[in-house]
């Protein structure tokens, strides 16, 4: 039975439920959110249907511009670190014995599925004065007395790298597992040192994969909303944090929606770019 074109109305029946659910509960909410971003805000947490750009204007102020710049910079830094470590890691992972691979994949999936709440809680504990890593350093005699290593930028960065690293490896893993092993063998036969072969054969061969992964991790990191709150100070808040803050605590849905729409545009253009770059790879 080959896949054939639907002929009768009944052939479409299986599509009815998924199409209905995705339209009603994804397309419609999304549309409403875009509409609300143009609504007029009323004091006291209400809004009236309208078509104004006040929320977008407010978003383009210096303060929110600064937040946007910080969010993008932070996400880019997280992505650079994750890809720089994750690339050689995923490469080595795809070349270990299958049992080792599976164990690592299970561990990475487990960390990836961890709630941001738990990651934030775990790292603030690890970096705290009473239960943190500084106690270990004191015990080893490297430090006078335990200190708190949070909240600060380093803590936010560490937490976000922790959250994004398993994702990075899992995005890179398929490309690494499919990489033609004869490439490396050939370079080794010709006398290249493994490191040299890695840098001159594997890295250039996967240049587009690296770029696409970088963009995907960047988008992933852009979505982090709790770690900057739990591990950083208010100046470390990202756009995702501000959207939550405006929606839930300031009850300014139009403004939150306007920021969300903007974030969608940034994300979609980045994902589009990643797909484009990735397609070039498979065409090559």
């Amino acid at each position: 039975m080959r896949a054939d074109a639907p002929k009768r109305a009944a052939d479409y029946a299986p599509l009815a439920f998924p199409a209905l659910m995705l339209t009603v509960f994804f397309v419609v909410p999304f549309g409403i959110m875009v509409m609300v971003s143009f609504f007029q805000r009323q004091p006291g947490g209400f809004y009236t249907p309208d078509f104004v750009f006040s929320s977008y204007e407010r978003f383009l102020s210096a303060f929110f511009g600064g937040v946007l710049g910080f969010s993008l910079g932070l996400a880019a830094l997280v992505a650079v670190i994750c890809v720089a470590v994750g690339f050689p890691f995923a490469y080595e992972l795809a070349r270990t014995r299958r049992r080792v691979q599976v164990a690592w994949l299970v561990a990475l999936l487990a960390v990836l599925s961890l709630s941001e709440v738990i990651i934030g809680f775990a790292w603030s504990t690890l970096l705290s004065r009473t239960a943190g890593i500084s106690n270990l350093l004191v015990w080893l005699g490297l430090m006078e007395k335990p200190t708190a290593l949070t909240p600060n930028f380093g803590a936010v960065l560490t937490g976000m790298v922790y959250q994004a690293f398993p994702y990075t490896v899992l995005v890179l893993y398929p490309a690494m597992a499919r990489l033609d092993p004869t490439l490396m063998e050939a370079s080794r036969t010709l006398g290249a040192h493994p490191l040299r072969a890695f840098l001159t054969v594997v890295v250039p061969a996967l240049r587009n994969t690296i770029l696409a992964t970088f963009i995907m991790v960047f988008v992933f990191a852009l979505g982090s909303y709790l770690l900057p709150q739990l591990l950083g100070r208010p100046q470390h808040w990202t756009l995702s944090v501000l959207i939550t803050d405006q929606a839930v605590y300031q009850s300014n849905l139009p403004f939150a929606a306007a920021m969300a729409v903007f974030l969608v545009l940034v994300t979609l253009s980045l994902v589009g770019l990643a797909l484009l770059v990735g397609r070039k790879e498979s065409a090559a």
Partner: protein
Amino acid sequence: MSGKLFRRILFTLVALFMAAPLIVIAGVSVNAQRSLVFPPAGFSARWYGEIFTDAAWRGALTASVTVAALSAAVAVAIAFPLSWFLWRRHAPWARVFQMLGTAPFILPPVITALGFLTFWTTVGAYGQPWTVVVAHGIFFVTLPLVTLSLGFASIDRALVEAAATMGADDRTILRTIVLPLIRPYIVSGFAFAFVLSLNEYIVAYMTVGFTLETLPIKIFNSLRYGYTPTMAAVSILFVAVAVLVFGLIARFGDLPKLLGAWSSRD
């Protein structure tokens, strides 16, 4: 430096980094006192007991597991007919729905969360417990969609054609050939969605955060009053559940293949 040594050092460093926060909270979770100290002072399993005996924690646990099971079922109920249709019928435009199903997973989660918040307030259902089931079902539909399309791609069409030649109709083929072959992929798609729903915070918070406390919401709300060993115990319990579920998928299925590696050669 030999390649073996490099690999060993890299793996060890990454393992340490990945395990460090978990080791510390595991230590904290067995503290005898009601304070967060590490290395732990004394040993006690009472904080694990508290998850099940304390009414508030038990309530949150029940809420989380119920939401996760129901929303994973919703995700599979959406993903199965859709991926079956895409496999059975030649209808390129139907891929639009596949894209729609993948979108919530690619966009920053706060977007989906805010979309649902505005939607439920507009239709007047904000805060109803079932809204989070629908929201998570949509949010995590990507996972069964991915595992199921892999599963359908692996079905040998000749098998199906043979059945059709012998007079089996679509329904019979679905029941006797497709379902048995696709079952592991249904289970793993459900399991992926279940584990991620269990841990999800922002969508749950923006749909039912004030009326229903799932465990991540409960942990976050409790953070305001300081850290307690019970939170550590819950976190470790979650890690254990995730390792167990993914371990089972790996034990009974082909995890590398599910994650996109082509062959399963050793």
